[in-house]
């Protein structure tokens, strides 16, 4: 299960970030931020023409000492659920795209995906 889930805006600022061992939040933030380089690399590698057919699953972005960082989707369909939930948030007419996500439903869904710590 995941220890940290983050939704990042295309301008690379966090829309939503949540991690389970809260005492080490900073580390996760750094990790997520750093992984954006890889995401960017992978996305840019596909090229503009292919942008539409791009595979959304980016796979393993990079491993750290303790964790592995994945982009978008895993075979557990975890990320599809996340995407669906994210789509729901986006469809909310009261949500202003680009704002930090503050949605109970999304929160609940993310909590379900998290490692149930303690």
């Amino acid at each position: 299960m995941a220890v940290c889930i983050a939704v990042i805006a295309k301008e690379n600022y966090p829309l939503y970030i949540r991690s389970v061992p809260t005492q080490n939040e900073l580390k996760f933030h750094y990790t997520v931020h750093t992984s954006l380089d890889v995401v960017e690399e992978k996305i840019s590698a596909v090229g503009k023409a292919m942008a539409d057919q791009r595979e959304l699953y980016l796979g393993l972005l990079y491993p750290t000492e303790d964790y592995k960082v994945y982009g978008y989707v895993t075979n557990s369909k975890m990320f599809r659920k996340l995407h669906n939930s994210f789509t729901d948030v986006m469809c909310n007419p009261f949500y202003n795209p680009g704002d930090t996500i503050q949605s109970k439903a999304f929160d609940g869904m993310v909590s379900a995906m998290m490692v149930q710590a303690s």
Partner: protein
Amino acid sequence: MAQCVQSVHEFIQDSFVPMVAVLCSEDAEKVTRKNNLNFSELLRPFCRLTSEGHMRDPNNQVQVVKNLRISVNNVVTRPSVPASGTPSLAQRLLLSEVVSTCQPAEGGVANVITAGDYDLNISDRSLKASVPWYRDWRDTLTELSTSKHYTATTPWFEAYRETFLQSMPAADHEFLNHYLACLLVVSSSEAVPVEKFLKLSQEQHRIQHSGEYTNPKWFIPNTLKYYVLLHDMSQGDEHRADSVYEDMKQRYGAQGCYLLKVNSRTAAAGADEQIPDPWSQYLHKSKQVLCVDGSLVNSLDSTHPLQLDTSGDTPGSLDALRAVAVETKAGTAAAAAASHGACLTLNDHDRIRQFIQEFTFRGLLPHIEKNIRQLNDQLVSRKGLSRSLFSATKKWFGGGKVPEKSIAELKNTSGLLYPPEAPELQIRKMADLCFLVQHYELAYSCYHTAKKDFLSDQAMLYAAGALEMAAVSAFLQGGAPRPYPAHYMDTAIQTYRDVCKNMHLAERCALLSAEILKSQAKFSDAATLLIKMTSEDCDLRSALLLEQAAHCFINMRNPMVRKFAFHMILAGHRFSKAGQKRHALRCYCQAMQVYKGKGWSLAEDHINFTIGRQSFTLRQPENAVSAFRHILTNESQQASSQQADLDSVLLPLPYINSSATRVYFGHERRLAEGEKQAATHVSLDQEFDRDLAAMWRDLEEQVVASANRGVVPATFQATQCCLNSQTDNLRFPLAVVEEPIIVEVVFRNPLKVPLVLSDVSLLWKFTLKDFSRPQDAAVGDALAFSNEKETLTKQSDDIIATEVIPEFFLNPEETKVARLKLLPHQTGQLNILGLVYNLASTPSTGGVWQYTALVLFIGPSPADGTSVRGRQDLEIQGPRLNQTKEEKTSVSHGPDRRLDPTITPPMPLLEVFFLQFPTALLCGEIRKAYVEFCNVSGVPLCGLRVVSTHPDFFTFGSSSLATPLTPLSPTSFENCSAYKTLATPPGATPGSVAAVTLVSAGDFGLGEGGSGTSNGVAEIPLEDRVLKPGQSTQLPLWLRGPDHEGVHEINFLFYYESAVKGGKISHRVLRHTVFICASRSLCVRATACRSNTLPEEEAEEEDERRNGSMLVFVDVENINTNEAGVREFHIAQVSSSSKQWRLHRCINPAEDKDCKLNSRERGKLCFRATRCKPVQEKYIFADLSLGNEQIISSTTPCADFFFRRCPPSDSRRPPVAVETQGRLSRSQGAGPGGGAEDLTSLVRKCNEVDLDIIVLWKAFVVEDNKQVILEGQLHVALQTIGKEACSLTQKEEAQEMVLLKFKPELPPPMTRPSMEQLSHLIKTNLHYPESYRHPFIHKSLCLVPVTLTLSNCSLAQVDVIIDLRHKTTSPESLEVHGSFTWLGQTQYKLQLRAQEVMRVPLRACFLHAGVYNLGTPRVFAKLADQGAMCETSQQTATPALIIIINDT
């Protein structure tokens, strides 16, 4: 990024150079010492050969040696470093020192790297980052990938690397830094130089072969010895040196010795000669390193922050270091002071260069060439045998054994050592030699071969070394015959690190490999390699490598900015652990550029916090503050993390809201003192109200205008006692010497922990100025003082006393104000700069937190009761300017002089107290109170005036009349009437006598007309008009309750001037605000009617008879609602005041002499008023007392309030009407209707009365079971006959709600005087006997004479037509028994002059006895000159009944 100054090839070549040892005789040492150098140092700048050398390889191929460098070092026999895997403490210190001394240049050219959306400023420390909003990043990326590499230099890394490589200890498994040759140097001044050479040669031999020393290590057993004879040109005999050299040549061969002549410059000659100092750049670094010895050695004794684990270091090495340090101390200290090479000329430089070249090409290279050949021959001869032997044995013993052996032996392979002369090492030796002379091809093949051998022997250390060098030489091979074997390096590093546990070698290997990979643009690999090398054991190395890795990321084809940032943070962390605070700060700052403002708040906060802390320790308070402020202003922070921050925090704590600062000039006033009530004035407790301020300003303008004969001076500026952000602070405020200045500062505690400030006081600067002298003189001797330096506090207190607040407590997140006082004792210009305070830990938290203030840094605080001296400046930005176009387009702010008061010479200071001042009054109630004026200053005061928003509320009495009436003290006033009264003569009927007084309005301080003009300024009748210092005076003050019920805010502004003129302040003011609650009392309505009775014949005067009289009905209603309080009202007196009319007598039908009114009762009074002749615009006061005492209404206070009354609303109307009419007539021109204006006024005049009725009443009120008599007066202004006037005008206020009309209102149609108005022109009266006896029997016709009196009421000539003819159809003709006829002329045409009375004799003829109405004559009148107008029927008189009695 780590873009080195050197190219990669250069770097690697320079990392491995032939080593040459130096053994120097003492005399030779002395020669070189003259130049502040030892021999090896002397040579160092010339160690790079500029020309090419040649040598032949074993295959007789000529090999070109380019750009060769040799390294010359003194022989040091002490083991410098134990050849263990970890670097020694001394080495660490050295490296750390190198890194910390090498800092990026301050203010250097900013090196901006654009990567993706980010513009990263790499070499600059400033926190500059563009706002990287999402542009088309893909475009940017593609553009970037085609562009050149980014450059950034990290000189500290290069310095580290250089020092690191130089300090590599010589290892056994490789020969690269073993000495190849030894220079034996002997001075020519030696008695027998040859012997000395011999000695040195022996010593070298001893060092190398005796086995006493493990250090230094020598490359080959028969080391090249090169004999150098050093000749000092300034001292020795040159011929002798030459001859000795000749001797040497004989002995050692021409290629084995050299005569070096130096010091040809004499000290005297060379003073002005400019000689370059090539040593500085070489020696500086190493010297610097050694120069730190003092501190280094000292710090070794104490615990150095870098000394993490001393366990690995033997005491010996420590001693060694100390010994080195002590030894070099003397030399270096001097060396650092003096320049190098002072005795050398340029010629000498050339000689040295020549010598090195000679030595290298003639001595060293051939020596190497010879050895390579020898080694090659050995190897070739042995190859067949040994190789086969090795392989045979391997086959023999090998097979399945190898793997199991490897595990067991891998552990201790580092212990596996070949003897120095082992054949396995010969090939390595040869490879190293080849490598040193740049024969990389041969070197590679040798290394490769050696590697295989070592691997097969499982000699891992050796193998790793061979692998490393094989890779390097493969890279260095020109023409790139084979790709760079990166995996060799990886294996080598892994082996060094994991198997041999030698981080030192692994690090060297990694440094080389990373450099090579970078040169091949394999940044990703380089970064991985560097990151792998980071470990827990050495923070400095880890930090540097992480930083390099970060630079690798950003130099990738697709720059990985975030990885760069992350690794920068890691590097910064390690730097800070390694004690490299400046580097740490730099790293964090660079990383900050990426994280800043992107919503990664947690990370951002962390970085900010670290930056803040590092800046703090580096004494960069501004950076620290901005970083910490960023954290603390971030609302998301929790108390816990803030507390963590506070562990080391330094902040401007608490915050000061500068713009909310208020400044108050003057004493803090007592509001009440016993029964005295002080003027409210201005205080800091009042909120600023813009409307109120405008009101006060208006009042002040009024009073200033009145003091300056009606003109407001151009320099007028409203007095501002309390300055805040909303007041006009453009000018320097004026404060008075010896009067306090109170500054209110708004503190805010942004933290969730309480703060305690102690010893809070203001900081100021003061320039002395003497305003009493002319301005020019004052400029010259301007003296400035300040209390900024604490020691001066005593002295500065004499100039300005500064109040200190001992303790000031701020709760968490509280906003609180502190008031700080200054008391100036001198005149001049004061500038309040800021405030100082001690910021202390709160007692509740037990002194755990230590707050450090902004500016002052302190050393370690005492363990408890910590406090820090803090200072904050009060800088107030003025309002934004928005006047001109320029100001509108730019953002500029005006000055704010709130805190820069000018201290002026003493001014009078007035204090005003009120005694017996009521808070509630009935409407119209008169109350007497007392005011006390006190001059509390040392300057006489004059020109005391008061202005009020309600001038009708109070009076000081008229100056001419009031004085004799004033009771001496308020106590004698008990239950005394406020009015001046006279007892009515006994026996006189109340209401029958009207006492008449003539009074001019001027006596009551009012201008002509007395209609209470807008000017509400009253001069206060002071004795002598001056209030001397310390003097106080008490004056009576009459108050009259406002006419409208409700709460009234009444503002007084007392104005006064200094009796001494010419000060900076022209006047001063004192404000007072009272609230009066007015409750309803009586409502008086009055109507005036024309009296139809003819003036009596006995009327005293002709005038009165002619003008007639008037009836005045006064209708008084008790509308008081407070039934419990007011029992009843008595109407004590009714007085009139007019210029033309007076009340004549009371014609009340009821005999009720004192009119009493209970609640809701209504009383009616009727008076006759007569017209009197106006006397010089004087007012006629007539008093009709209904009680037993007469109130003299023409004196204070009654008349005062009469004159101060609000002008009745009716009187305001005429000017408006005239104006509109004027406009009309203008539009119509002088047409036929032009006379209408005249007409109207004429007609109105006819009906005008202008009589004011003053109703004086007494109210019996029960208060606390005590009956109190209250008095009061109400005014009614009668304007027009027949129109009711009321004392209450409040209903008219409702009219203010007028609908907004956007079209101009049509001018009212020509106001013709109405029929009704015109019908009042003529007053008619019939005079006849009431009853007439007539004997109808005798005479059938009864003739009765009747007189018709016509009196013209108007002031114009009137044409009158009298028509006596009966109008039979007239409905109003009384149907009486019969009719009568008028005899004689039935129609008269008359002309009546203004106010003329005419009597027309008429005769009536009656036929029968009976009652007849004589009132049949119809009177028509028209104004004489109004031809166009027809006559208007005049109001008929009341029925005039006559009784005709048949007299029989």
